[in-house]
């Protein structure tokens, strides 16, 4: 929670010596509150005041990084309870948990590791893996070696015994997340995390115990922590995760100001965790259908509500079009653009995709808002130079805006306006029957 100018002023020397370049300490305090000045500007702040100010300006939820080989998972640093208040910044990591005695370990990891799905032009996949110790260190280390041979992605190591954890961590790459410190092993786990400079998960079944543990561990010098409130039912996890988030963001309660890890056992609970405050969502199975749905949900929840995802307006070529290939018109909302592009591209047809500047809105939204009208389409036709690239004068508009065809004929004299189908899925069939040159 940021301090106000007045709160900061109370911590300053209040001598108005002007050395900071501001007329008064209060003026300097106001600039600090507005983040337009640095505390270092005042040579006279006491170390105590400095510590207090620095801790107050630290983010309410600590940013924690798990990484390997250049791939980073950054979690935390969230500032709001609801995405519309600003945005959610660090997309929940979707990870797969496997046990070290799984005979198909390598195969399962390779399969999940190579998984890539395209969502509105963004390539998405599994973020990393959690390897769980079931018996002794030997087996655990072996499994981690196997894992490392199959994936470069960041890892979570699950072991209760700190000795096994220490052995396993040697093979796990740059910065695995160690899971987990609890009441019985926290000193050793904390020492280990400290020596390896890697984040540590902390688990306890009540928020008090969890807070007590994080405080104790912090005193040992480990600050990159991840919380597991050990609530894995729908209701318990919603309550606990909401309380943790509120305590961190609204009460500036440092002891719980860390990202959270959960282990949902099905896709519905995983979806709840993606929307409601989990940062590491660890799944037991890898299923492409489920992964795609969860990845899409995660993208949606974490998009910036202030700006729709959009592509640049202009002329796009699909499958190296020729002068006699059809011209399709659409808007520059990413979802819309990719819906059309993927259909045409996937069907093997060639075509010119003319993307009008509709301020990042879908066909009907833009039409209703007056951002996808005859003028804008005509402008797109004229400014992109499509006329010189094709040997015909026909454009296909989305079926949803069939009403525009009359106006368009007036705005684009000499052009034939063809009304396409309502849904992009039907576009290839439409082209096959209707496009004759």
């Amino acid at each position, binding site marked *: 929670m940021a301090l106000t100018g007045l709160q900061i002023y109370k911590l300053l020397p209040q001598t108005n010596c002007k050395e900071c370049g501001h007329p008064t300490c209060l003026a300097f305090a106001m600039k600090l509150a507005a983040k337009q000045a640095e505390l270092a500007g005042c040579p006279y702040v006491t170390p105590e005041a400095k510590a207090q100010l620095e801790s107050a300006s630290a983010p309410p939820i600590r940013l924690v990084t798990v990484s390997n080989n250049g791939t980073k998972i950054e979690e935390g640093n969230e500032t709001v309870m609801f995405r519309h208040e600003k945005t959610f910044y660090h997309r929940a990591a979707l990870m797969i948990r496997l046990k070290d005695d799984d005979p198909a370990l390598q195969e399962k990891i390779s399969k999940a590791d190579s998984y890539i799905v395209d969502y509105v032009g963004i390539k998405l996949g599994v973020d990393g893996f959690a390897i769980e110790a079931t018996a002794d260190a030997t087996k655990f280390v072996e499994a981690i070696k196997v894992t490392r041979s199959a994936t470069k992605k960041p890892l979570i190591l699950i072991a209760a015994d700190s000795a096994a954890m220490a052995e396993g961590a040697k093979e796990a790459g740059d910065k695995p997340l160690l899971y987990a410190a609890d009441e019985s092993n926290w000193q050793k786990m904390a020492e280990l995390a400290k020596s390896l400079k890697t984040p540590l998960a902390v688990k306890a079944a009540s*928020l008090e115990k969890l807070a007590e543990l994080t405080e104790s561990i912090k005193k040992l010098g480990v600050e990159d922590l991840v919380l597991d409130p050990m609530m894995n039912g729908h209701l318990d996890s*919603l*309550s606990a995760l909401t*309380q943790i988030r509120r305590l961190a963001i609204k009460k500036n309660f440092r002891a719980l100001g860390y990202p959270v890890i959960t282990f949902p056992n099905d896709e519905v609970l995983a979806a709840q965790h993606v929307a409601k405050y989990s940062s590491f969502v660890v799944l037991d199975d890898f*299923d492409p259908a489920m992964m795609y749905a969860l990845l*899409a949900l995660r993208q*949606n929840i974490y998009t910036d509500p202030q700006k729709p995802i959009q592509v640049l307006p202009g002329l796009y070529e699909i499958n190296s079009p020729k002068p006699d290939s059809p011209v399709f018109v659409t808007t520059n909302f990413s979802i819309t653009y990719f819906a059309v592009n993927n259909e045409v591209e996937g069907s093997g047809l060639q075509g010119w995709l003319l993307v009008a500047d509709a301020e990042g809105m879908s066909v009907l939204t833009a039409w209703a808002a007056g951002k996808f009208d005859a003028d804008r389409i005509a402008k797109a036709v004229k400014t992109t130079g499509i006329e010189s690239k094709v040997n015909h004068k026909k454009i296909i508009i989305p079926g949803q805006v069939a009403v525009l065809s009359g106006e368009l004929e007036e705005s684009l004299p000499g052009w034939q306006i063809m009304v396409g189908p309502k849904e992009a*899925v039907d576009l290839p069939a439409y082209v096959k029957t209707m496009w004759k040159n």
Partner: protein
Amino acid sequence: MPTVEIPKEKWNGKVREVKIGATKEEGGSRTKTITIGGEATLPFLHFENTIPHAPALAIEIKDRKPADWSPLLYEAWGDAMNDPAAWAKAAEASGADLIVLTLSVATKPDEAKATVRKVLNATGLPLAVFGPGQAEKDNELIVPVAEEAKGEKLLIGVCEDKNYRTIVAAAMANDHLVTSKTPMDVNLAKQLVILIHDMGMPLERIVMDPTTGALGYGIEYGYSVMERLRLAALQGDSMTQQPMIVTPGEEAWKAKESKVGEGVPESWGEWKKRAIYWETLTATPLIHAGADVVVLRHPESLKKVKGMINALMSKGN
């Protein structure tokens, strides 16, 4: 041990309670009615305040077999889709709390009346009846339906800003409720409730439909508008305190991910699983954003979503 004080918000308002359906004693013929709304806190935060009713789950059926639904939905409902009465029975058997009957553009007023009568006879569940969403056609079909089912406390629509008067009047004259549907905007939602209420419709008989997009197709807009509406309701803004109905079934099954099994990327996974995930993952966030009535299409999605709702409402255990 550090003391952790459970952070609770103090809300000034709560969602209105709305009851759908009327029993014989109440002037209708339903064997079950359903009450929604009444929440005095955000979804499922029982630690903070009271949540008297679980979100209700509806199955959408159509008066005639739809031509363009996903093959998976034909597979799920089979021959029942040829007969709205049979379909309603199947929907009831699948665990739905209420039935949403949507009428087709091709339907005639008399047919609509007969269908509604048949569905009322086939199931004791509360019923919602919506027109095809085209102003003139909606009025033409919903008015006779409202008369036919007088006293049943149906939930009827579609009331939109350009077309609500006729349907609201029919609902008032025949003792029904209405949905107030607006495109994903807090102020539009509020305004339409005001307009409908100004006609004399009691607020206890209005359910808001803030609309949504499907997972991957704009759900985040619907999700955030619902969260904002619910926060406004709890903060005491009276005209946002209506319970909310959403249609994740309709939206999700429009998406290519659910609709088609062939010619899609391999990374999309197995079709049937994906389709169900698409519907459940469209519904789940919307339920967490405050949905009070959730309209679905596939019985398996209903089962899964119901499991979640039961878990979220079982505060004693």
